[in-house]
């Protein structure tokens, strides 16, 4: 009975080693998020086109990056009255795209429940990539980068 016990433990050690290797391998290969889907690419394209129009408003401080991965009209006063409606439309179209983008990435990876985490990851990265002078929302409100 004692020898049986010993070989049981030896097998157990082998099992753990195999499990460890398997887990390590899985983590290595399954670590990328799928973002190259037709849906994601279409949204990317649409956002890229819109950015040409939005860039000036980021720079003027009229529009800023929010803490939840969206954008917002921060200072309407800097936008001439005639353009205000256009800016509002740009902001809301951009936010629609961003919402869709986060959902699309979560769905493309088979984890719709990841959407909130994807959004908060993006929120941080947008801010990180923002150009100096752009306004970003932090814990204490708006601040200029």
């Amino acid at each position, binding site marked *: 009975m004692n020898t049986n*016990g010993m070989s*049981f*433990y030896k097998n*157990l050690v082998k*099992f*753990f080693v195999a*499990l460890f290797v398997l*887990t390590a391998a*899985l*983590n290595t290969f*399954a*670590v*990328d*998020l799928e*973002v*190259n*889907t*037709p849906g*994601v*690419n*279409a949204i*990317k*394209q649409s*956002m*890229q086109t819109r*950015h040409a129009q939005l860039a000036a408003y980021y720079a003027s401080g009229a529009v800023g990056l929010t803490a939840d991965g969206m954008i917002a009209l921060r200072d309407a006063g800097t936008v001439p009255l005639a353009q205000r409606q256009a800016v509002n439309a740009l902001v809301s179209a951009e936010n629609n795209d961003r919402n869709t*983008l986060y959902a699309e*990435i979560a769905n493309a990876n088979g*984890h719709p429940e*990841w959407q909130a*985490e*994807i959004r908060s*990851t*993006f929120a*941080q*990265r*947008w801010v990180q*990539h923002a150009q100096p002078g752009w306004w970003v929302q932090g814990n204490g409100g708006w601040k200029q980068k």
Partner: protein
Amino acid sequence: MNKVWIPVTFVAFTLSACVTINIYFPAAAAEKAADKIIDEVWQTQKADKPVEPAAKEQK
């Protein structure tokens, strides 16, 4: 024979940990993916990316 329960517990624990790993949100991968998308949308890294205006390649 009481000892048998120790390894059984370990195995159960390890297996549950494996399952947990697979449903964990891959934060590092998400950051990488976000950086890539942001670079393309904002055109912040023009060097390695020849701007694909109509490129809707699949997969």
